[in-house]
């Protein structure tokens, strides 16, 4: 049981909390922001799991590109789930 494991635990729990937040919220913009957080946290986890290539790709593609595409989709549709 090292400190690093505690940090990992915190990150995984944070990720699950974020996922539950996505389920609950009605504001899709908040959901997209929180999904970006999930990707960012996943990138740290990949980093801790000694997968730097994956961490870079996850950060670049999931956090950057996907968020941008989601924002455009939100702009062209509507922001709140009715």
């Amino acid at each position, binding site marked *: 049981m090292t400190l690093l494991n*505690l940090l990992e635990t915190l990150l995984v729990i944070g990720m699950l909390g974020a996922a539950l937040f996505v389920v609950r919220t009605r504001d899709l913009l908040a959901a997209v922001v929180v999904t970006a957080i999930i990707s960012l946290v996943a990138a740290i986890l990949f980093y801790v799991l000694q997968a730097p290539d994956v961490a870079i790709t996850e950060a670049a593609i999931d956090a950057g590109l996907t968020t941008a595409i989601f924002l455009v989709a939100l702009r062209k549709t509507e922001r709140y789930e009715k």
Partner: protein
Amino acid sequence: MNQALLYFGGSAALFLIGLYLVLVKTNLIKIVLGLDLMETAVNLFIVASGYIKDRTAPILNRPDLLAHPSQRAVDPVPHALVLTAIVIGVAVMAMALSIVIRIYEKRQTLDISKLRSLRW
């Protein structure tokens, strides 16, 4: 806390949450978000399954790593697979969102219970 439980349980839970979003939510964008979560969960699972305790990343740019790489580095294959899976995931996401934009343009709603042919 047990690391196996942490990573495997965490990715399984994330996967289930994503699937729940896809199956239960009626908002199209929420469904796409659910697909995204499922992707992330599977990727996390793949990387976690390739992790080996006390070993380092498979980038052998230090002389001491070159001696017995297979005793020093983690499994590189899952990383390669996840790279592919992430790229495929973003492709699917882009397609899904462009379809969502089109549906909204045609039907002025994102609620699948109001879309005739999407009620499954």
